[in-house]
């Protein structure tokens, strides 16, 4: 069974005709080719598919696309500003918070939600916030460091 879904993705209005079984994750990857949304466990445990849904971080594998009618969605593709990396992305690069890169989009999206609420988080606040994002390279120390060390915090508002 199919349904028409209208939502705003990375600032662009979209109207899609989708199978009701489709998850937000699959809609973003298959219908909009936003491949930064990664499928890891498919059960809400690993956080690789994290996107912002109306500003809140969610595991997009556990959201029905049909439930996103009228929503605003931001993926990692919508984070960079004027073709330049977002300060958080820049910090991940500089601090070595990226190894294989599989968990990185999810880490970035969840950290972005944290920094918007709390621009100068403590280490334990970062670790608490990122507890739903697994890094199989186990590069947590550098990821936490990168989130705590974002420069130009005033640019995080975007």
């Amino acid at each position, binding site marked *: *069974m199919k*349904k028409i879904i209208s939502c705003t993705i990375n600032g662009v209005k979209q109207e899609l005709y989708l*199978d*009701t*079984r489709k*998850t937000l994750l699959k809609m973003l990857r298959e219908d909009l080719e936003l491949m930064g949304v990664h499928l890891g466990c*498919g*059960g*809400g*445990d690993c*956080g690789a598919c*994290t996107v912002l*849904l109306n500003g*809140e*971080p*969610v*595991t997009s594998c*556990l*959201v*029905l696309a*049909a*439930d996103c*009618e009228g929503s605003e969605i931001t993926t990692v593709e919508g984070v960079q500003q004027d073709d330049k990396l977002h300060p958080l992305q820049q910090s991940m690069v500089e601090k070595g918070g990226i190894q294989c890169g599989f968990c990185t989009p999810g880490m970035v999206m*969840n950290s972005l*939600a*944290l920094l918007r609420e709390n621009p100068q988080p403590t280490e334990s606040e970062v670790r*608490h*916030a990122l*507890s*739903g*994002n697994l890094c199989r390279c186990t590069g947590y120390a550098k990821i936490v460091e990168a989130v705590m060390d974002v420069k130009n915090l005033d640019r995080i508002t975007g």
Partner: protein
Amino acid sequence: MKPFEHFAPDSVGEVLDLLQSIPKAKLIAGGTDLLLQMKQGSAQPDTVISLKNVEELRGFATRKARFRLGAGMTLRGITRSPELKKHFPGLVYAASVVASEQIRSLATVGGNICNASPSADLIPPLLALDAVAHIVSRDGQRDIPLADFFKGPGKTILKSGEILLSLFLPQPSGNMFYSKHAPRQFMDLAVVGVAVRLQKNQGMVREARVALGAVGPTPLRAKKTEALLTGKTLTPKLMLEAGEMAADECSPIDDIRGSAWYRKRMIKIHVRRNLEALL
């Protein structure tokens, strides 16, 4: 996943009409449990009714001498509510230790209750706060103490055509403390969960609530332990006895997360520690 029809009504009235015409429809709020079950095939609904647009399920408000907590409030919403932080810090803490930030953005208090998992983190604190479930259907409405809401793992007293609309919480008397025991600090289910609320007058316990999670087919009130504490002054000996009595009152099972013996031990320790925290 089996194909299904998806409805997204805007009001409780429409939800109840749909439930009346399609009694086997599944309600979806956060979806963090149902969607998993559908992916695994243990739930195969033909119809899904989304509760996301239902205004009446939202929000937290004061009504006369009590508080109304909408069943559709997300756990993240609970952890961000200044009013809930002020009046029910123990409940806010319980919401903050469920799963992850991403899951808390989706999962709702009503979902946590209606899934009726014995280990649900929000249920012991709500039992300790004397929460009342406000249930509506096309035939009317009824208010049931949350303590009488659960029938077994995954089973509640909700009848076909009924939905949990909100919870009523009386003005809290005394302080409530929740503690969760799990091997991992985050992203884990409770091996035991313990909520204790005490109202004291000049050091004497006037009212006690002890609610236990993950140690029986449903979350439960340890009523003998509550009676033991009432009318007494907390001493190290009494707190120890209360822990032992609570361990006697519960009936845990052996499973992958812990043995029955271990769970009873942890109940004893957490009840005592929570009492110490409320000294």
